[in-house]
């Protein structure tokens, strides 16, 4: 039987690591301005808003669990300073944040796009006059 403390440490490490990796992959893919992937990502959030909505629902749930957990711990901590109650709600918060990172970055959808992009001649990049126009307009 594993103690709850060690379980909490391992599970928070695992969930936060997955969330970090998902958002890091997204960051590295969007790093180059007006690259093929960054324009494709913006098109995908416009064409499939449901995935984005679900992502922000899970981010709301993460904030909600965090707020509820710490409000209750705040009241408990006046009498019991070493309350472990926040660890229980933090697991839910980390789980929701991991779901947010996965839905937001959409890393589970990448393989399909790669397959279509690698099939051959129709790999026309969507960048072009539109991006040049926005770049010129901003300056």
């Amino acid at each position, binding site marked *: 039987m594993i103690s709850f*403390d*060690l379980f*909490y*440490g*391992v599970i*928070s*490490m*695992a*969930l*936060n*690591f997955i*969330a*970090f990796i998902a*958002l*890091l992959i*997204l*960051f590295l893919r*969007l*790093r180059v*301005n*007006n690259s093929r992937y*960054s*324009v494709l*990502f*913006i*098109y995908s*959030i*416009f064409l499939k*808003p*449901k995935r*984005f*909505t679900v992502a*922000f*629902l899970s*981010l*709301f749930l993460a*904030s*909600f669990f*965090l*707020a*509820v957990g*710490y*409000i209750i*711990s*705040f009241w408990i*901590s*006046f009498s019991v*300073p*070493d309350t472990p109650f*926040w660890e229980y709600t933090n697991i839910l918060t*980390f789980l929701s*944040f991991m779901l947010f*990172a996965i839905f*937001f970055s959409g890393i589970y959808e990448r393989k399909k796009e790669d397959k279509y992009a690698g099939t051959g001649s129709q790999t026309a990049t969507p960048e072009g006059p539109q*991006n040049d126009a*926005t*770049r010129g307009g*901003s300056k």
Partner: protein
Amino acid sequence: MSVKILRGFGMVLQLTTVVFGLLSVVGLLSAYFTSVIFIALAKHNKDRAPLTYFMLKPEASVYEIKLFILPAVAIFLVGVFTLLQKLSGTPSASNPTASIFFYTAYTFGLFTILALVYVEYRWYRHMKRFL
């Protein structure tokens, strides 16, 4: 591990109480911002009006999306230091290593939620007009 920071009015204020109060206030703020973003996105699920900003200004929206790396790095460090603290034992005066890891995890947790609220506030400014 309890650090008393203030005595008076017949009670003792702990450091954990202050941190819990701060985190609950910031958590409520974060829940408000994300609920506004979520309601705006869910309300305009068919016409996608809030997402036109992201289509019309691709470079600015890529910057907004890339900002989520700040809370991601911080939450990763929270996980690392939480695991290190649980492996090194209970934090106390005789176990300074565990205490250092404990307070480092606390600090990065505070940084995570503050960075997350900053990013959410930037999104909230674009989304609130569509409520």
